[in-house]
């Protein structure tokens, strides 16, 4: 066991997979010499050489398109989008090819690509550095979308992502990149993609969240406890394929569900969870499924970001309203 942050854990997972599979290739902007602007790929070039870990030209669509080519030809590229807000040039390749190649070729070709991208707000950043666009990826048929909330999960899910024969969008909550430290096994282990995790058992209301929002929900749960409300917290961990079963089971038990996401609310993962609750547990519901989300606005620059960011108080406020409904 070793104490790791999410940064360390992803690095460790990459290290393990580079070590046990020579088809794994890691590249992107500034990932080689510098080891990434967040240091997630630190030392990997030194250890595995420039043929396997390298800096690409500043060209996201090129990075993604070459990854599709590499993958079809038999490699397992792990590419980095420096920030999720700069992945948009790569959209063409993600939507038009990476997500469709298997279906188009009737299974002859696969695209085992991992697209890593730091995402999310709360870090006092410049424009385009704070968005949470997971719903967009969740909406694209053919992609898996993974978001860890702890170092342990980050490592296990990253190993699973690299070993997956489908393209995985691996979104890293940069707000908690270094904020959470945890003992993580140094051995190779993986966590199945598509499985949510019940973090705390409770009986009054189910709260579903992921990424940096987990910590905020946990703060709200202290307030809830003081108010005598018992919360069941589910860490979704995978946006798609979504774990219907775990959500349904919990909502049937509590009769109430709140989803907390930092993205805009309309057409969000929260909308999807609400609908799953409606479909799977309608007769058990004692209150309308609730979404606690960012506004349908651009994330404000740092001086206005406090308006946008979801506070533990806001989460508690909605928990209380839902329970009292």
């Amino acid at each position: 066991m070793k104490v790791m942050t999410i940064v360390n854990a992803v690095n460790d997972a990459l290290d393990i997979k580079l070590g046990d599979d020579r088809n794994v290739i890691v590249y992107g902007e500034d990932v080689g010499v510098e080891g990434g602007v967040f240091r997630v790929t630190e030392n990997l070039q030194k250890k595995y050489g420039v043929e396997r870990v390298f800096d690409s030209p500043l060209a996201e669509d090129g990075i993604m398109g070459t990854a599709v080519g590499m993958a079809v030809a038999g490699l397992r590229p792990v590419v980095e989008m420096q920030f999720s807000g700069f992945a948009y040039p790569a959209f063409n390749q993600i939507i038009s090819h990476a997500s469709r190649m298997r279906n188009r070729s009737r299974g002859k070709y696969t695209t085992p690509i991992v697209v890593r991208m730091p995402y999310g707000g709360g870090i006092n950043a410049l424009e385009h550095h704070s968005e949470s666009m997971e719903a967009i990826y969740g909406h694209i048929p053919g992609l898996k979308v993974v978001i860890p909330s702890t170092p342990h999960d980050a490592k296990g899910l990253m190993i699973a992502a690299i070993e997956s024969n489908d393209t995985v969008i691996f979104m890293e909550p940069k707000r908690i990149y270094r904020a959470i430290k945890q003992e993580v096994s140094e051995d190779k282990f993986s966590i199945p993609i598509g499985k949510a995790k019940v973090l705390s058992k409770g009986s009054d209301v189910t709260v579903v969240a992921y990424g940096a929002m987990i910590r905020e929900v946990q703060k709200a749960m202290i307030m809830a406890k003081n108010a005598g409300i018992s919360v069941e917290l589910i860490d979704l961990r995978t946006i798609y394929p979504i774990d219907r079963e775990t959500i349904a089971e919990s909502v049937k038990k509590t009769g109430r569900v709140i989803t907390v996401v930092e993205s805009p609310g309309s057409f969000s993962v929260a909308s999807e969870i609400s609908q799953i609750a409606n479909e799977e547990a309608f007769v058990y519901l004692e209150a309308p499924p609730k979404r606690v989300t960012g506004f349908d606005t651009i994330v404000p620059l740092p001086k206005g970001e406090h308006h946008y960011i979801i506070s533990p108080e806001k989460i508690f406020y909605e928990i209380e309203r839902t329970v009292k409904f």
Partner: protein
Amino acid sequence: MFEKYNPLDNNMLQVIDNDGKIINKEFFPNLSDDQIVKAYRDMLFARTADLMIVSYQRQGRIFTYPPNYGQEAIAGAIGANLKDDDWLVPAFREMGAYLAKGATLKELFLYFMGYEDGSLFKNAKNIFPMSVPIASQLTHAVGVAYELKYNKKDNVVLTVVGDGGTSEGDFHEALNIAGVWKGPVVFVVQNNQYGISTPVSVQTASKNIAVKSIAYGIKGIKVDGNDYFAMYKAINESITIAKKENMPVLIEALTYRKGAHTTSDDPTKYRTKEEEESWEEKDPLLRLKKYLISNKLFTEKEEEKLISQYKKEIDRQFIEAENYPKYPLDDVFKYLYEDMPADLLIQKNNHEKFLKWKENFVKN
């Protein structure tokens, strides 16, 4: 000029050497002594501000900032060449050009302190806000050029990108469309040798960046970006033919980013001290100052005086920015649409209800 400095030959337009001596009379720009002194003062102002912003950042009074240090001659020459009705479509490392266009330092401070209001450039005409997604601004400039041509305006649009940006598809699409449509557009590539940690040799196998113009059927030239006179001349001639012949031009301005990529970057990770030192004698301010002093247009004493005067002015604007009013909730919502959609209004009202509840909650 374009024939003589054919990018295929890899020649670079240079007018003064590192000692500020004229080595290329033919291309010395048509500038009065007063204009030259003003150019130096403007660059000095930009540099003083730039260095002060980095120290404000270290004091925690401003967020991430991309220093211009070492690249001031490019922005200075852009600023001196653009008229009020000309358009500037910037990236984010051209302070002198924004200021010349009429943006204020206070606005730049506000932007980097985290207020969208800093993008307003209230009294500046025809300038786009800064563009953070690399190279995405370049096609905007081609669109502006279309309008200028369509309405037969006697103006130009100038846009800026870094060497890293030339790797993006957007760069190639912009040059290609400009070549096909023709129009009064000048592209300036600030080749400061790095895109964050990535050297230009990782971005392109071309022998220089200017050479890329040839394939797109537009004009191109490589210029010493640390030589104010060469930059002024190149931009000036480019604007002339862009306007007269609707001929797009690509200028590669060779320079060096003396500072970090941004205040969160550590260049010691990817470049050597020796390399950094080798650029010292090519510093754009140093070279222009040597020219001024040897032509008795300026003294070190004056510089000292100017710097202390500038520092006061910069600090005054900074403190004004620090005392800017709080960011109201309304500002998150009100600029997205011409009329606020009903659904957004509900979101805002609900949030206000929550805030009222929170006041009580926190009290109890």
